[in-house]
């Protein structure tokens, strides 16, 4: 347990260092972004000095980490506001979107996987497997654009884009996120459905399931108690991975549906070379990922007695 928490730090450091290096290596000058390409060189130079861009990479890194230690994520170059404030204002949207998507992924994915496994070989099973294959192969933005075309423009059931905050109405808010959540969630659901299905099929072939049937236990109890419980345990760990995929998928989806979340913010920050903001968002996402996975690990230990009592 302790060891696992300690391993968090190096796990976080790697993506951050990687990102930092990549940013430094990308062409593009934030100062020029802000002042325009035709600004006088001395002005550019002064801005660069101000922003600390002339320091060596090492120094910049140390400065950033030092600020981090004081929980200061720096100031967004473009917005001229603390990065933390910027993130705070946008995180809500992304959290709302990701939660909704996760719900869809889990319910649709696991549900389809269970049905598929129990009716193995049937047209239903084949349909689900085909669907999930599409899901894993389709680019999300393409899928999202198509959904907009059909349901927003064509049928007018959903807004084309934009986000309605929760405060303005529960249903209205979720309606604005319906299509984006479906886009994100359904794609991942395919992945989860396959894993659920194969886990259940594995368990079905286990001797203890035959033994349970031999005890005279009716089939529906055998499935519920003896098959689903052991089979869903590994699926739960996969949900942690699904979350990571959802977070990264949110970028494309937020752009397509013009949602003011962290994903879209990230895209524009990169375009503007707004280093502090980029670093801040990556840090937040990385930490979230790591924490979720840690939680999932702990959950595993709680529900699987084989792990609990070693």
């Amino acid at each position: 347990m302790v060891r696992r928490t300690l391993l968090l730090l190096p796990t976080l450091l790697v993506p951050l260092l990687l990102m930092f290096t990549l940013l430094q290596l990308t062409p593009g000058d934030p100062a020029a972004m802000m002042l325009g390409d035709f600004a006088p060189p001395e002005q550019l130079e002064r801005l660069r000095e101000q922003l600390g861009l002339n320091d060596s990479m090492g120094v910049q890194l140390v400065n950033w980490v030092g600020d981090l230690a004081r929980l200061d994520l720096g100031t967004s170059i473009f917005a001229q506001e603390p990065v933390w404030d910027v993130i705070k204002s946008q995180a809500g949207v992304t959290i709302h979107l990701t939660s909704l998507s996760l719900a869809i992924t889990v319910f649709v994915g696991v549900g389809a996987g269970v049905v598929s496994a129990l009716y193995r070989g049937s047209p239903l099973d084949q349909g689900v497997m085909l669907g999930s294959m599409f899901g894993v192969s389709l680019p999300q933005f393409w899928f999202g654009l198509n959904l907009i075309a059909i349901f927003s423009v064509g049928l007018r059931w959903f807004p084309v884009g934009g986000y309605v905050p929760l405060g303005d109405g529960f249903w209205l808010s979720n309606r604005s996120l319906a299509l984006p959540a479906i886009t994100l969630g359904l794609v991942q659901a395919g992945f989860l459905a396959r894993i659920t299905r194969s886990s259940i099929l594995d368990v079905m072939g286990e001797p203890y399931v035959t033994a349970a049937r031999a005890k005279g236990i009716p089939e529906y109890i055998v499935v519920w108690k003896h098959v689903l419980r052991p089979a869903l345990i590994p699926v739960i760990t996969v949900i942690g991975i699904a979350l990571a995929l959802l977070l990264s998928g949110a970028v494309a989806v937020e752009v397509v549906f013009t949602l003011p979340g962290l994903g879209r913010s990230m895209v524009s920050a990169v375009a503007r070379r707004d280093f502090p903001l980029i670093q801040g968002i990556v840090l937040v996402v990385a930490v979230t990922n790591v924490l979720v996975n840690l939680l999932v690990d702990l959950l595993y230990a709680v529900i699987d007695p084989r792990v609990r009592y070693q």
Partner: protein
Amino acid sequence: MEIADTRSDDPVLEVDGLTVRLRTSRGDVEALRSVSLHVDQGETVGLVGESGCGKSLTALSIAGLLPPMSEVSGEIRLCGRNLTNLDRRARRQIGGREIGMVFQDPVASLNPVLSVGGQLAEVARHHLGSSRREAKALATEMLDKVGIPPSRNILKDYPHQLSGGMGQRVSIAAALICQPKLLIGDEPTTALDVTIQAQILELLRSAASDSGASLLLITHDLGVIARICDRVVVMYAGEIVESGPTSKILSAPRHPYTAALLKSVPDPEVETDELETISGSVPELHEMPEGCRFAARCEYADAACAVDPPLEVISRGASLRCWHPVGGMNSAGGTGGLSGRRS
């Protein structure tokens, strides 16, 4: 559904002409052909054969655990009542209540994420309608009967914490908790250490008899048969080839396969430098010959064996499927039924 009490001289189990066809990747195969056997009250019957002979499949058929893609014909009667024409739900109910089953790998036949106590109790709660407390008491009592005293407190343990011997005791307890009429053991000691195996064999016999259950023991080990079985049924390539009292079959086998099998087992009382072997190998299920299935490997085979001999009942509890039994025809105790086909 209760099975009415029967007169004590009715057999507990009667299998009559059981034929099972399975769908495999190579087409439909007849995995069991016309299997007929019976187990009387209080008897321990052994079902023996090498891998692929169909002994496990026979056990699964009796317990109603065949996979859905199988075609079953023939009758299986438990205390006089036909099981084969029951609907699926009623058939499933028989398990645990009238028939208890113990499998080969004890720890693998217990659900790893449920507690031992829970898995014992669920049988009682489902079949006997016991309350949680009643079931727990019954479980504790049953565990005690199989040699795990309450002081061990294993109700809360999980299967992976049990040793092989303990696991098998738990399985036996679960199988007998509702006092079934028949206990089936499918290679129950094969995966256990020698000294533990001896304990469990003895336990199977005594626990079954204490519970009033008859025992059908499936194994490949002739020594195990000798040790606890009153009668033995020998199977080869999906058919029964011979059956009879254990002592008789082991000392004077009639079927050439049984005789050859006995000679290929290292016998502690025989000093020899070489074991007898059976030439050839078991025919594949989808390439089963017409006629006697053992003929290709039999030293007594002749033209008559192109026709599969019927299973002839010699006396109650003894049968033989052979045109040329070891030791000649006369000692078979009756040639009735054989149409004297011999060229």
